[in-house]
C-alpha cells in the first residue's frame, strides 16, 4: 500500500466476482476510474494435480489430465498421450491421428464459440451470449455423439483413440459444420457492425507485439498482436502436418482483434474438419500397448483453444510417472494481462480479462488426495471458519 497517492484505492476482483467465472484474486489499484496497477494472486482452485500424477498409473492419469480443464480437456489429453506415446516410441495408426484432429478441432470450435458469448456477456450484451451458446450446443451434441461425453470427452487412450467414427457420425458432423459455418459467418459480419460492442473493444487492452513476445503470451492473444505462432504449424502433431490451414493474425493488438482472431479461427477449424473428414484413412484406431513406460523424458506441445499447452513427462520405468508438469495457456498469458490493463478503465477490466479467455482451473491445475485410501481431505465448515478467523486475526 505504499507509494500510492491519496486518490488511489484498491478494488478487489475475486475470488468471487461476477466477471470471473472461476475464483482467482486480482487486486487493482485505481485512481478514479483508471487502473494504475494490478496484483495477481492465484491458487484458489489449486488441486495438487501435478503431485497427484505421481501417485497414479498412466491409465488413471489419462482421465486426471482431462480434469485440469473442462474446456481444453482434449488438448490436455492429447498432450499427455503424445508424451507417453513418445516415450514408448510407438507409431499410432493414422486413422487415430485423424480422429484426434477432428475431436480437437471440434473442441476448438466449442471453446471459441463459448468465448464469443462470454465476451458479449462481459460487456453487458447478454443476447450475444445466449445466441453464441445456443449455437455451441451443436458442437456439444456432436461431441456426445462421437465420444460419448459432452465435455471431458475421454476419447483418447494410450496408443490411439477409443471410439471409431461411423459414416453416420461423419455425415452428422458435416451437417453440423454447414450450420456452424453459416452462423460463424453471420457473427463475423455482424460483430464489427455492432457499434456499442466495437466501442468497448477497439483500442482497449492494447498489447504491443514486442510486449507480447517479451511477456511470453500465447495463442489467440499473441496472434491478435500480429505474431504468427501456432503450435499446429510450428510443431505439428497428430494429423496437422497434412491438413492445410492458415494461421490467423490481426494487427489491432486490442480486444477487437482478439474477437476477430477467434471468429476466424472457427472458420479455419471448420476447414480443417472438412479436410480431415474427407481424407480420413481407413484402418485400426488403436494399438495395444504394454502397461509400463520406459524411463526417459519428453516434452510435448499442443495448440489448445486458448494457446500453447506444454507438458513435460519424466518416467522412471514404472507404471507411474516420476514427474508430470503441466503449463496451461492461461498461466502464460497472465503477465500480458498486467500490461494490457494498466492505464485502462475499471469498466474495461472484465472484457480485457476475458479477452485472453482465462481458465483458472487450467492455471492452477493442482484437494490433496490421499490416493491409497481414495479419500480426499476437505475442510469442514467449522474448520474453515476457524481457519479464516485465525488469518483475519493476524
Amino acid at each position, binding site marked *: 500500500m505504499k507509494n500510492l497517492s491519496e486518490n488511489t484505492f484498491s478494488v478487489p476482483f475475486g475470488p468471487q466476482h461476477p466477471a470471473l467465472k472461476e475464483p482467482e484474486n486480482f487486486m487493482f489499484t485505481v485512481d478514479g476510474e483508471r487502473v494504475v496497477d494490478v496484483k495477481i494472486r492465484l491458487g484458489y482452485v489449486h488441486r495438487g494435480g501435478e503431485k497427484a500424477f505421481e501417485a*497414479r*498409473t498412466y*491409465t*488413471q*492419469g*489419462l*482421465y*486426471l489430465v482431462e*480434469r485440469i480443464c473442462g474446456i481444453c480437456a482434449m488438448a490436455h489429453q492429447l498432450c499427455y498421450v503424445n508424451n507417453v506415446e513418445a516415450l514408448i516410441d510407438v507409431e499410432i495408426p493414422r486413422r487415430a491421428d485423424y480422429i484426434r484432429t477432428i475431436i480437437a478441432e471440434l473442441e476448438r470450435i466449442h471453446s471459441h464459440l463459448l468465448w464469443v458469448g462470454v465476451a458479449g456477456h462481459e460487456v453487458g450484451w447478454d*443476447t*450475444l451470449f445466449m*445466441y453464441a451458446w*445456443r449455437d455451441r*450446443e451443436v458442437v456439444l*451434441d456432436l461431441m*456426445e*455423439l462421437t465420444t*460419448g*461425453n459432452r465435455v*471431458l470427452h*475421454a476419447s483418447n*487412450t494410450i496408443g490411439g483413440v*477409443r*471410439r471409431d467414427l461411423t459414416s453416420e457420425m461423419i455425415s452428422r458432423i458435416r451437417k453440423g459444420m454447414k450450420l456452424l459455418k453459416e452462423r460463424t459467418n*453471420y457473427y463475423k459480419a*455482424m*460483430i464489427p*457492425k*455492432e457499434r456499442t460492442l466495437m466501442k468497448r473493444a477497439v483500442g482497449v487492452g492494447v498489447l504491443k507485439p514486442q510486449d507480447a513476445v517479451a511477456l511470453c503470451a500465447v495463442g489467440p492473444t499473441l496472434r491478435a498482436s500480429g505474431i504468427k505462432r501456432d503450435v499446429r504449424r510450428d510443431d505439428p502433431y497428430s494429423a496437422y502436418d497434412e491438413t492445410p490451414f492458415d494461421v490467423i493474425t490481426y494487427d489491432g493488438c486490442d480486444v477487437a482483434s482478439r474477437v476477430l482472431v477467434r471468429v476466424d479461427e472457427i472458420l479455419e477449424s471448420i476447414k480443417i474438419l472438412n479436410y480431415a473428414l474427407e481424407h480420413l484413412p481407413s484402418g485400426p484406431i488403436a494399438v495395444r500397448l504394454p502397461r509400463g513406460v520406459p524411463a526417459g523424458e519428453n516434452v510435448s506441445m499442443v495448440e489448445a483453444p486458448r494457446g500453447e499447452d506444454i507438458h513435460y513427462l519424466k518416467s522412471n520405468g514404472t507404471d507411474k510417472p516420476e514427474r508430470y508438469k503441466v503449463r496451461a495457456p492461461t498461466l502464460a498469458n497472465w503477465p500480458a494481462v498486467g500490461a494490457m490493463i494498466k492505464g485502462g478503465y475499471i469498466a474495461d477490466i472484465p472484457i480485457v480479462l476475458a479477452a485472453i479467455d482465462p481458465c483458472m482451473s487450467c492455471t492452477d491445475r493442482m484437494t490433496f488426495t490421499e490416493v491409497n485410501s*481414495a479419500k480426499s481431505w476437505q475442510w469442514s465448515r467449522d474448520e474453515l471458519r476457524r481457519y479464516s478467523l485465525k488469518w483475519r486475526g493476524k
Partner: protein
Amino acid sequence: MAMQNELVKSLAKKPATLLYPFEKYDSIPGSRGKVVIDITKCIGCGLCIRDCPAFALEMVGKGPTCDMKWYITRCVFCGQCVETCPRSAIIQETTYDLAGAEKAALVIEYKRPKSS
C-alpha cells in the same frame, strides 16, 4: 442495432432451451451414462478397480464371490472400466439423470444371487 433482424426472427421461433424436468432430451446413442455391472459375468479380477481413475468402484469380498458397489458421486463417466473388463461384465447405459437427494441412494450395489 446489428442484431435486430435476428431478434425479430427469434420471436417466431420455438425457444432453443428445454423445460428440463418436464421435457427431457433424447439421449444420444453411445452417450456415456449409468454404469451397469452384470455381476454373474464378473470373475472378481479387480482390474476395473485398478484402472478406475476416480475410485468409483468397490469390491465387497474377494475373488469370484465378490459383490460390486458403484458410487455415482465419485464416478467421472469415463468408461475405462467398460474397456478394461476382460469379461465384458460392465456396460454403460445412456441414462443421464442420476441425481438424487439422498447420499445413500447414490451408491448402487450389484449383488450376486444367493443360489450361485
